[in-house]
């Protein structure tokens, strides 16, 4: 072999060894004699995923022999995987549909949906009828609802999102009746779209909106039925448009799944829930 080839071989071996060394050994602390061990697979809504993941990390630190894997893929995925046994627990960011009653749902948090406008928009509130008219394209200019003379840019969510389902259900709108100018995927995209367009209107999760509004993003939340849109009001059940964030299972959860769900519903994770601007479930 030529000199540079031996060098290349040596280099490759070095890299391989370094890579293997960098992968940490399972250096877990000496395990407490807990009875919980095994792997848990949780899939579903990406809204719930960050919360489920943080709860999972805390759970794992208390039970070192447990491994929890959280994957996204949407509420429909959560339902399907739980049904087919591809996951132990499904995450669903809405109440269960009538044809999903074969599953059991346990809420771990609540979230509201708020209509948002750009901060500079002089309009302070909208009645239900006005919102419906704007979203069906009957009102096209802000001046018709007391704002500037500017065309309204309607922002809607893509098909299949629970936020859209809940919004349309609340305002009694058919999905196909909504005439939008921009369709967005995730909550943050909605926030950023509205923040970039002074004449737009959209709707997102209250948690996301409130966080952004209090951190300098130029959006504001509209009150609904005169109730201010804020997480506080979702908590005391005065805000009308709220949804549960559910963990669903096919049968009554047992063992590891049950321990996790109970942990997720307990007050031990309230701080995590609040950090993500969701509302912890009511305690009996």
């Amino acid at each position, binding site marked *: 072999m030529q000199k540079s080839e031996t060098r290349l071989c040596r280099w490759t071996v070095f890299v391989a060894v370094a*890579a293997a060394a960098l*992968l940490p050994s399972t250096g877990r602390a000496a395990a407490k004699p807990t009875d919980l061990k095994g792997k848990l697979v949780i899939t579903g809504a990406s*809204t719930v*995923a960050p919360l489920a993941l943080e709860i999972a990390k805390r759970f794992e630190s208390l039970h070192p022999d447990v491994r929890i894997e*959280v*994957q996204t893929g949407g509420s429909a995925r959560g339902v399907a995987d739980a049904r087919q046994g591809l996951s132990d627990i499904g995450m669903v960011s809405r109440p269960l549909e009538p044809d999903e009653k074969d599953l059991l749902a346990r809420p771990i948090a609540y979230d509201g949906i708020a209509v948002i406008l750009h901060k500079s928009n002089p309009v302070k509130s909208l009645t239900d009828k006005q919102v419906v008219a704007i979203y069906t394209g009957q009102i096209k200019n802000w001046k018709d609802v007391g704002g500037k003379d500017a065309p309204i840019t309607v922002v809607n969510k893509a098909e299949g999102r629970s936020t859209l389902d809940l919004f349309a259900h609340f305002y009694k709108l058919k999905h196909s009746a909504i005439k939008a100018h921009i369709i967005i995927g995730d909550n*943050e995209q909605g*926030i950023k779209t509205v923040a970039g367009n002074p004449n737009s209107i959209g709707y997102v999760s209250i*948690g996301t909106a409130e966080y952004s509004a209090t951190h300098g993003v130029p959006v504001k939340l509209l009150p609904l039925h005169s109730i201010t849109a804020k997480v506080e009001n979702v908590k005391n059940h005065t805000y009308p448009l709220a949804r549960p964030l559910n963990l669903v299972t096919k049968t009554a959860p047992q063992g590891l799944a049950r321990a996790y769900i109970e942990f997720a519903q307990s007050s031990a994770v309230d701080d995590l829930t609040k*950090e993500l601007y969701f509302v912890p479930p009511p305690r009996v």
Partner: protein
Amino acid sequence: MPKRDVRWLSGLLGVLVWGAAIVITGVFIALVGDLAWHGMPRLSWAFMTTAPSNAGRDGGIGPILVSTLLILLVCLAACVPIGLGTAVFLAEFSPAASVFGRLIRRSLDVLAGVPSIVFGLFGNAFFCQTLGLGFSIASGGLTLACMVLPILIRSTEEGFRAVPNDYRLSSAALGFTRGATLRHLLLPAAVPGLIVGTVLGIGRAVAETAALIFTSGYADRMPESLLDSGRALSLHIFDLSMNVAGGDANAYGASLTLVLLLLAINGAAAWMAERWLHRRIMIT
């Protein structure tokens, strides 16, 4: 052609060429400058080695960097041998009019245009489910290998085509086997094409998000083996900027880290190209 016309055209070309270079540099500065401006405050050794916490808004991206590098390694390990082999086959061993050769070339062109999300779904069905790898770095790397393959093959093939035929003829005249010709003469000469293909391929792999959501998954802990789920850097950036409220700051930091990582990888690739080029026999 009268001299005056020629000079005018040449002048115009000069203007266009410099104009293009300036526009591209401008775009680069706008993009990367924006990243650097927002990301610098977050960048530190701690950021690059600690684990994410608080849904990624605090802490760092240590495990994610490791996952990303492992995915990249799996991808390259899978696609460089097959890619190189195919490229050599197409360039050296299949006559231009051969049906097999044409079929492969066209298949690769089509493969280059398949949307990343389709790769993700395919990867999920094939690597995760059929081959039973589940959500893992291995699945992610192999799926990316499928995506990168056409780019690698086509540009490497071009590299081989660029080698003058004199090389092949003279080595045959000297009694070299095809294999030896390849190893000592053609491979070093075709290195620029291979490097471009690798760089483009790595760029594509690192930039990929949609394909990895369904294959290497969401877990943000340090992976312990190639069969563990591991979040890639691009996916982390996506989650922070689009799914988690307030994740923007760390998203910028992560993006800047990604740019620096790429700089390092591309620089290494170029350095290796230089080393190999020293072995090139220059005729001109």
